[in-house]
């Protein structure tokens, strides 16, 4: 209680610096929050696409059915593979006629079926990354009777790349501002300590415990971080509500998972505490230490 009261007194003493600290930590988290929204939503899109990702291998016409059956069993046993579907030449033609109506005449007149039989491999969750997909494709392509293996579409990779880029930028920018915020908190707490230098000295002389002396300053840092974090949450939420309304093209944007927002606010408080601890250690840590 006393610690909290004194931490709040710190805010009254240096309101501008406190506001700057809160603003900086807030800004860093707004950046993380907005990019988080983007990343989260791209992530959702990727998830949708991912479920449909297939690795397709086209068989040579002269593949021996023995070999094909054996290969299918092997492929099904792969850890990355969820299911293997075999599409025969006839089925492929059937489907082509159905899907490509405008060509149905062409196909109808064919004497020889030009379409190859194929394996369609679905991958298990966790193996739907570009790397796992291309690895599975090359395993498939290694069979002598497989003419060609294809996978996904390029844009799956693009989505992945976009998400990595968004994450990278968010971390760099957010991290940069978080660093600025921490430096500001270090300074704020340092000022608070210097403003109370006389009292601290007397406390140390008469035998107050270290925790008792340090707690208000640590709390001041943590509260600064917490307020900044909540502010960031509010601003991000506001952006989330206002932004899609302006740009109607973006529909059904998903809000961040609660775990992310809670972790964000907790991180802000923790960074504030860390910055304050640094200052406290530097400014009042010597009084009881060796030397």
């Amino acid at each position: 209680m006393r610690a909290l009261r004194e931490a709040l007194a710190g805010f009254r003493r240096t309101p501008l610096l406190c506001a700057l600290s809160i603003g900086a930590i807030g800004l860093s988290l707004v950046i993380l929050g907005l990019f988080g929204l983007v990343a989260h939503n791209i992530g959702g899109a990727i998830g949708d696409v991912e479920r449909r990702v297939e690795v397709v291998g086209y068989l040579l016409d002269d593949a021996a059915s023995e070999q094909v059956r054996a290969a299918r069993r092997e492929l099904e046993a792969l850890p990355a593979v969820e299911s293997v579907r075999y599409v025969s030449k006839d089925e492929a033609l059937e489907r082509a006629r159905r899907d490509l109506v405008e060509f149905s005449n062409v196909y109808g007149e064919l004497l020889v079926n030009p379409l190859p039989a194929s394996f369609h491999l679905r991958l298990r969750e966790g193996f739907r990354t570009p790397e796992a997909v291309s690895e599975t494709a090359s395993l498939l392509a290694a069979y002598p009777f497989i003419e060609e293996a294809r996978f996904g579409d390029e844009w799956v990779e693009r989505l992945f790349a976009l998400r990595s880029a968004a994450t990278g930028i968010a971390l760099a920018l957010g991290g940069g501002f978080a660093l600025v915020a921490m430096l500001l908190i270090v300074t704020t707490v340092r000022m608070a300590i210097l403003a109370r230098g006389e009292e601290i000295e007397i406390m140390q002389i008469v035998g107050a415990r270290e925790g008792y002396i340090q707690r208000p300053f640590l709390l001041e840092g943590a509260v600064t971080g917490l307020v900044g974090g909540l502010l960031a949450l509010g601003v991000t939420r506001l952006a989330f509500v206002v932004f899609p309304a302006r740009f109607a093209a973006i529909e059904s944007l998903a809000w961040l998972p609660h775990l992310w927002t809670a972790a964000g606010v907790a991180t802000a408080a923790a960074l504030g505490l860390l910055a304050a601890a640094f200052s406290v250690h530097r400014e009042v840590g010597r009084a009881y230490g060796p030397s």
Partner: protein
Amino acid sequence: MISLRNVSKAYPRSGDALREVSFRLGKGEFAFLTGPSGAGKSTVLELIHFQTRPTDGEVRVSRYHSKRIRRRDIPALRRRVGFVFQDFKLLERLTAAENVAFALEVIGTPRREIAGRVQRLLSQVGLAARARSRPSELSGGERQRVAVARALATEPRILLADEPTGNLDPDAAGGVFELFRMLNRLGTAVLMATHDADFVRRHAEIRRLELEDGRLVRDSAA
């Protein structure tokens, strides 16, 4: 109660502040610590209060050893060893009573006990009537009495005073000194650094530890 064994203290830039100083101060004893400016008087007091540690040798205060003490034990040690400064170190914005209450509060005295104890401490130093005055409204001697009352808040067995009369006129200095003697008669050990030669000469019955250039050159009890 206090013992220094071959204590040396070197500072990175200014070199040796103390060299091989050894002495003991028993329960309830009174001693002057004298010597010219820069001789190391303050350094001795700071070592006993564990504000600094010896470079060599060992400082022992009751059951605490400079070589073995843990960081978290230092507050407990400081509560047993009161400290009074030449410049009082009172908080100007607080009254005499509040200055004493501050010390009681920060060592965790229950709130309801504080007012009573403040009153007793101020009476003990003869300042009950000035409880509501701020330091700026008090004379030097009165301010030092407030500082002594604050130092007594933790009921220390030892009182260290670094030139406590240095800023006082002779009358006020005599008053503060008599206060120390009274506290000493009640059982508190007192180690008082001073370079007031007059004072020391007039009280030849009191033990005198004399430092010169970081060495203990005289101990009237030895």
